[in-house]
């Protein structure tokens, strides 16, 4: 027993310390504690300041929308890819290889690549012979299209591989059994494939969602300057030369964490229920 406790410490202690310190200090600094000058007084001023500056609400809406749309596309594409990977030869060879190769590409590179593809001087604009001003504003446009596509691209590969790993184990056997028992394609999808894939879809989808919600570099490179999503807003306030707005950076950071936690916890609940009933 003692030996096992010792074995878990190298992972548990740094995790607890880092998360504990980050959250405690984040909350404290968002409430104006440990200020740069003046005595400690706790208040929610930073939260109301960033809210009344009209920056927080758009940031929440934009971040949630980007994450939601990107994850929805990633789930649709990823699930279709997973089905192709587990049922066809082409899928199990070519698509699987392509999805695996997408995985180790860092998101910064993904963002740079999507920029080279979709910008108004990008490759697609050149291929379609679009003249200046004609090309839709994917990069830095009002619909955050390039940002959403980058997330959807990378995360669809991830979701495809996670779901395919779950399906490959026993989906084929079960589907054949169901077919012998008279289930048509629609019934097999509804009663065999979907129940098997749903827990994996929930887990992978949640990780993708939380990632898209909290990642800085992709919207910073591919998005527009204003309004800003949560991580970009937090980063700008944090690195601002005006130290007075530092607590607001932490207020934005804590709001982001709260959203991520609510989504993470509800997904975990949903996941548990799915696993139990499946």
């Amino acid at each position, binding site marked *: *027993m003692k030996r*096992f*406790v010792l*074995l*878990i410490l*190298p*992972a*548990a202690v*740094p*995790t607890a310390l*880092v*998360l504990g*310190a*980050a959250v*405690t200090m984040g909350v404290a600094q968002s409430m104006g504690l440990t200020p740069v000058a003046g005595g400690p007084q706790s208040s929610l001023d930073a939260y109301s300041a960033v809210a009344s500056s009209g920056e927080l609400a758009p940031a929440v809406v934009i971040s949630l929308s980007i994450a939601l749309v990107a994850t929805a596309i990633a789930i649709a*594409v990823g699930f279709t890819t997973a089905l*192709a990977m587990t049922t066809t030869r082409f*899928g199990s060879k*070519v*698509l699987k290889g*392509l*999805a*695996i*190769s997408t*995985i*180790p*590409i*860092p*998101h*910064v590179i993904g*963002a*740079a*690549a999507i*920029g*080279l*593809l979709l910008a108004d*001087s990008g*490759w697609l604009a*050149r291929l379609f*012979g679009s*003249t200046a001003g004609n090309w839709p504003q994917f990069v830095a446009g009002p619909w955050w299209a390039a940002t959403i596509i980058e997330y959807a691209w990378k995360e*669809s590969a*991830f979701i495809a*591989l*996670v779901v395919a*790993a779950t399906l490959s184990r026993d989906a084929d056997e079960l589907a054949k059994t169901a077919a012998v028992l008279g289930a048509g394609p629609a019934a097999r999808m509804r009663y065999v494939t979907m129940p098997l894939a749903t827990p994996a879809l929930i887990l992978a989808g949640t*990780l*993708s969602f*939380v*990632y898209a919600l*909290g990642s*800085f570099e992709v919207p*910073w490179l591919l998005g527009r300057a204003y309004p800003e999503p949560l*991580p970009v807003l937090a*980063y700008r306030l*944090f690195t601002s030369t005006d130290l007075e707005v530092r607590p607001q950076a932490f207020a934005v*950071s804590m709001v*982001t*964490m709260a959203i991520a*936690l609510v989504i993470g916890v509800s997904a975990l609940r949903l996941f548990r229920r799915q696993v139990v009933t499946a």
Partner: protein
Amino acid sequence: MNRRTTRAAVTATATQWLLSAWFLLPMIPVMLWAVARTWPAPLPLPSDWGFSGFLDALHDSATSAFGASLILGTLTAVLATPAGAMAAYALAYGHLRGHRSLSVLLIAPAFVPPFVIVMGLNVTLLRLHVPSLAGISLVLMVTAIPYTTFVMRSAFAGYDVTVEDEARMLGASTRAVLTRVRLPLLAPALATSAFLAFLVGWSDYIVTLLIGGGQFVTVPIRIAAAASGTGNEPVIAALSITAAAPPLLLLVTVGLLSRQRRRRRASANPVTHTPAYLTASGALR
């Protein structure tokens, strides 16, 4: 074949090609720009070919950025892989009190955005005078632990402990059981978990940026700097290929090696582990 099945087959083929294009398309301009010397705007292909992007990147200290990324990736793997493996072992066989809270704790960093962690930790690291490389490695290790622990937990779930008993009955010492039985059987899962942890360090941007304060320049930082400006396409492409190639080569090599191994000893039963990609997304962020 009736008309309905023909149509279904056509749809299936079209879907497969569309999906292939979806995964492949974003990397095509990168590959073209990497070997383009001049590529004026309306042309669909470069007008002159060459490696000026790579040469410019080299001139602009790309090698030191490459080295810095390599150090971060390696440190993260060296720190997070054994920690995750030991934690997974303890969770699998330890019957620990607070088993569930410990599991939640070790998976939690995957659900907290990295910028939240780094911003919160920054003042503490500064006050304690933690050197920036140590601070970066600590945060990256914590970010990688959910993935290494998860991979090793699924490996232990498929691990047959009775093999160790058999070895012991045949006279193997505790040490021999560890080095001759347990480690070889868990090697594929350990490799996967080390690969994922390496990727966490290799592809990190925000942790290095905020804790390193611009002093610690990695390949992602160079790429972001180049991509935020204009007219740097060849350098962006060259750096992107430089950054994407090592993990891809590693993936292919590990894949080929494990296939060879599997063929060589079809009778032995290495633990089927969670494939590299299973938990990779987090790693690749």
